[in-house]
């Protein structure tokens, strides 16, 4: 059986993340922790909770995406896989894209699926569930792709996690603004849903087009 290189890479990434020590579930658990402790910290004011609920879900998604990202390329750098990927015939940009896609499938997609459920804990209105899920579905791939740039720049550093977050957060702020306003629009009368949602889509498509090249350039530079 000869699978195509990219399909084999996707399968390998998913397998590594799902095995013990791969950290695949870490993001969702962290997401759950943040969402669970918020009502305890804020108190039983349901109106307040449902108003800030979309923002809490988005902040939790942003932080839990960043949590696992620093190992995205570092593990491959340490065991020598990255050298072989840099040298092999498949373009590095495509390899980066497939790695990000696999990472999002394992860490981002569960967040999207879990978000409506966690929304119950934050007293979200039922009509806000789909808006939160849709904005996260569109926005989290961009978080992963932008985070990959930071992960590539810190690939040779031992404890690069915090530096990754510092590098990535400024880039992620537009996503946060439009993501939260799209998610909150279901319960507000002033903001329409489509305007911030379409801007969020545009940001994600922009990240999809540009980030693989930035990541590949950073990896080539860091490996020399």
């Amino acid at each position: 059986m000869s699978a195509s290189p990219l399909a084999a890479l996707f399968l390998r990434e998913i397998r590594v993340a799902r095995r013990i020590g791969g950290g695949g579930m870490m993001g969702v658990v962290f997401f759950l922790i943040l969402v669970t402790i918020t009502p305890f910290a804020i108190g039983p004011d349901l109106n307040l909770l449902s108003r800030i609920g979309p923002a809490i879900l988005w902040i939790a998604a942003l932080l839990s995406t960043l949590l696992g990202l620093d190992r995205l390329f570092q593990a491959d750098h340490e065991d020598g896989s990255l050298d072989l990927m840099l040298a092999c015939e498949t373009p590095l940009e495509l390899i980066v894209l497939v790695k990000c896609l696999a990472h999002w499938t394992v860490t981002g997609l569960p967040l999207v699926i879990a978000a409506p459920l966690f929304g119950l804990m934050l007293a979200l209105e039922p009509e806000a569930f789909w808006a939160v899920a849709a904005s996260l579905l569109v926005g989290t791939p961009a978080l992963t792709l932008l985070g990959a740039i930071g992960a590539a720049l810190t690939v040779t550093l031992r404890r690069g996690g915090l530096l990754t977050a510092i590098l990535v957060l400024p880039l992620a702020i537009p996503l946060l603004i439009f993501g939260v306003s799209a998610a909150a629009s279901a319960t507000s009368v002033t903001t329409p849903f489509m305007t911030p949602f379409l801007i969020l889509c545009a940001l994600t498509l922009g990240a999809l087009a540009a980030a693989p090249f930035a990541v590949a350039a950073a990896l080539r530079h860091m490996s020399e």
Partner: protein
Amino acid sequence: MPRIDLPLETRPDLQVLNQQGPFAAISATCETLGVGRGGRLLIENLNFSLENGRALVVAGPNGAGKSTLLRAFAGLLPPAKGRWSITTGASDAQEPGALAHYLGHAEASKPALTARENLEFWRAMLAIPGPASLHTPDSALKALGAPQIVDLPVAYLSAGQRRRVALARLLLAPRPLWILDEPLTALDASGQALLNTLMREHLALGGILIAATHAPLGVEALQLMLGAEGAA
């Protein structure tokens, strides 16, 4: 040219490789090559040429630049000066990354995956156009004398067994140029003998071998001594 005669007619997989694709008329040439690390030039003015079936052994004291030179040969480090090129009968001046197997100190195996999963991934990733290998992860590990470890996670393997898994990559994707950094590390006597046989087969096929090593490899090879005189 010293060629090792092996009964190729008994090995259909090797016969196919011998006649077509990237193994036909390959040559690797170094012209006034200079290689450096961090702005410091470690190796200067290196000139040599290797053709089908030739091996080069890079030797020298620790820190002489053996690994750096091998990384440059594998295309992972751009040469600071001069030129390093590989031409084949199929087409000329190809990327080293598309023709060479690079085996460094790190084994490039994921500890959480089994040997088979690791090898199947690299088989797909490293395949190049041309005749496909007839090896499977099972048969490649059998050729390296460790068929029993194929379904074990790499985390459970000993250093020598991990080395064998990494060496099995060489068989799973046929590539004409082998660049091996200390290939004998952690291998026991029988492992060294098996690797020696594989290297002889590779050279008999017309492949090229470049290795950095302190121990004798057991194949006839040009010697490149770094840190003493420079170029051979």
